[in-house]
């Protein structure tokens, strides 16, 4: 257990660069996303994670480190988090990481977090490109940290972190002792825009780059080869089928009710 005091509270917030959700995405020859062909942005939920880290820092002091794994353009996403106010960045970059699935990614991230003395590790609860929501849990497991996922609020008091965990029926209040890992949902806050000052200051902040050797991970544990899952085949989404048009001859209401009940909506 770790008592957090304002001088030492250390938060690592993990962010991912993803293709702009509105952009048309294409796959490369190896069935991985062609990242060069689309505008890349910070995964939206990760903005909430950064915001929450900054709010905790504003309340308790300490340090916010932003961590991202990805190809060279990922620096833009790290800079964005730094311009919002994070103190420093860690960029995990290595050609060998290309094509890593969730299991392999969680290994690289866990290794990059390990040894940094983080009191809290914060993630967005899913990425808009993969949408699996498993990486936070996997990283927690690898690091042996309690995981408080799908949080709609986070507070830290002494050596305890307390969150509201969103469920189907409302939320559960969960508590763990620090260090711990938290993933957040978008209900948690409203991410700030970087201020002009923040943008200019971001340039001077330190970003450390780490490769596989630096992480102590061997090439066969990650990347396409080291992944447990592989994309065999991909097909474009079929074009939208034409809808059914009901002419209202007086029985329109019944027709709608029948349709909804056939689809089990009512």
């Amino acid at each position, binding site marked *: 257990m770790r008592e957090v005091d304002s001088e030492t509270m250390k938060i690592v917030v993990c962010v991912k660069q993803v293709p702009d959700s509105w952009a048309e995405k294409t796959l490369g020859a190896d069935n991985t996303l062609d990242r060069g062909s689309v505008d890349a942005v910070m995964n939206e939920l990760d903005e909430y994670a950064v915001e929450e880290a900054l709010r905790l820092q504003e309340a308790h002091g300490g340090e916010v480190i932003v961590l991202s794994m990805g190809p060279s353009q990922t620096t833009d996403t790290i800079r964005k988090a730094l*311009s919002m106010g994070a103190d420093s960045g860690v960029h995990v970059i290595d050609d060998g990481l290309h094509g890593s699935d969730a299991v392999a990614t969680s290994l690289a991230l866990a290794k990059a977090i390990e040894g940094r003395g983080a009191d809290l590790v914060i993630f967005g609860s899913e990425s808009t490109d993969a949408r699996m929501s498993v990486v936070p849990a996997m990283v927690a497991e690898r690091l042996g940290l309690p995981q408080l996922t799908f949080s709609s609020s986070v507070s830290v008091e002494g050596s305890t972190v307390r969150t509201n965990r969103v469920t189907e029926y409302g939320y559960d209040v969960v508590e763990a002792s620090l260090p711990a890992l938290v993933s957040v949902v978008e209900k948690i806050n409203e991410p700030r825009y970087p*201020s002009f000052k923040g943008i200019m200051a971001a340039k001077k902040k330190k970003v450390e780059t780490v490769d596989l050797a630096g992480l102590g991970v061997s090439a066969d544990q990650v990347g396409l080869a080291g992944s447990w899952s592989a994309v065999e085949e991909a097909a474009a989404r079929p074009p939208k089928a034409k809808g059914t048009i009901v002419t209202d001859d007086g029985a329109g209401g019944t027709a709608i009710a029948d349709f909804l009940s056939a689809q089990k909506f009512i």
Partner: protein
Amino acid sequence: MFEWSDEQVMIRDAVRDFINKEIRPRVEEFEHGDTPPYDVLRKLFATFGMDAMARERFKRQIEFERAVEEAKAKGEPVPEKPTREGGSDPSLTMLPIIELCRVSPGMVTAMGVSMGLTAAAINSRGTIAQKERWVPDLLTLDKVGAWAITEPDSGSDAFGSMKSTARRDGDEYLLNGSKTFITNGPYADTIVFICKLDEGNPPAERKILSFVLDSGMPGLEQSPPLRKMGMHSSPTGQLFLNDVRVGRDRLVGETEDVPSGGREGAKDTFSMERSGVAAMALGIIEECLELSVGYAKDRVQFGQPIGNFQLIQEKLARMEVARLNVENLVFRSIEVAQAGKGLTFAEASAMKLYSARAATEVAMEAVQLFGGNGYMAEYRVEQLARDAKVLQIYAGTDELQIVAIAKDLLRR
């Protein structure tokens, strides 16, 4: 400088993001409703910390001016002006102007007159006490400012036919006159009123004085907004002054002894206004070009996208040439300022003349390219074309810019 730096692109994108979320969806309300632009502009400044930066910069400026005054009073050498740090990069004002103008040039007009013209008029010629009294609130738009020189019978010939007067009355002045086409006039909290000191001498010899007025002063009337062709999100009105009584504390500079009869002070303000117009033009041109390229690809006539027709291609090519030229002018003005120099009056005039014409031409050609849709309010180019036109009229008409450029050339 030939392109925006990484930081400038980040600033541009962040501002664009804000505008797309906060202003674009409400543009109808700002253009055709009764919502004044000030609240959303204040939110923009607060969001990006522009208000805090302006306040800090002002504080540093005043500290320096105080030090200079103290040194002078003690007969000591005047301290050197501290070199400016990143905070005063002119691109930090240019980028929001450009981005806002893609959506609402009217907002920039309202903002520029308040934070630019009005604040600058007091900040360049006022006493330290006057600066502290009025400038900080204007820089953050906490107070809305108006700068009033134009009168019903006095426009291009601003000083020559000016009828507004100040007459001494004991230690005070009585101000009279009417002003028109005054941006922010209907809502202004702080008004810089420019008039002639009437000492019974012939009008041509009278000194030009500026006074700072607060709304609500007895004898001061601010009209409701006038209806106009464009710039609907910038309220424009008339001011009527009937024996408005003011003390010397409201006379800018607190002295009647103004260099070159007060005509130079207003000229500085004109110069600044003119380089701002180039940034406005760039925003309008960028938006029109982007919309036009999209439309040229999508709109099909005679079985093919209209972009295949050479007459349409010519329009797009000319728009791109205008964009490049105006962007270069904006880059130049940024670099000149970063080098600690200013544009000459003639140079600022040339820049304004070219940019204003380019913006109007591009926006009108965009309307043409969009055909009937271009004439419909639903398509953005309709508003931008109406808005662009005024760039050729306010801040000195095209004709007056030409006069200024030619005068400078022929004097050499």
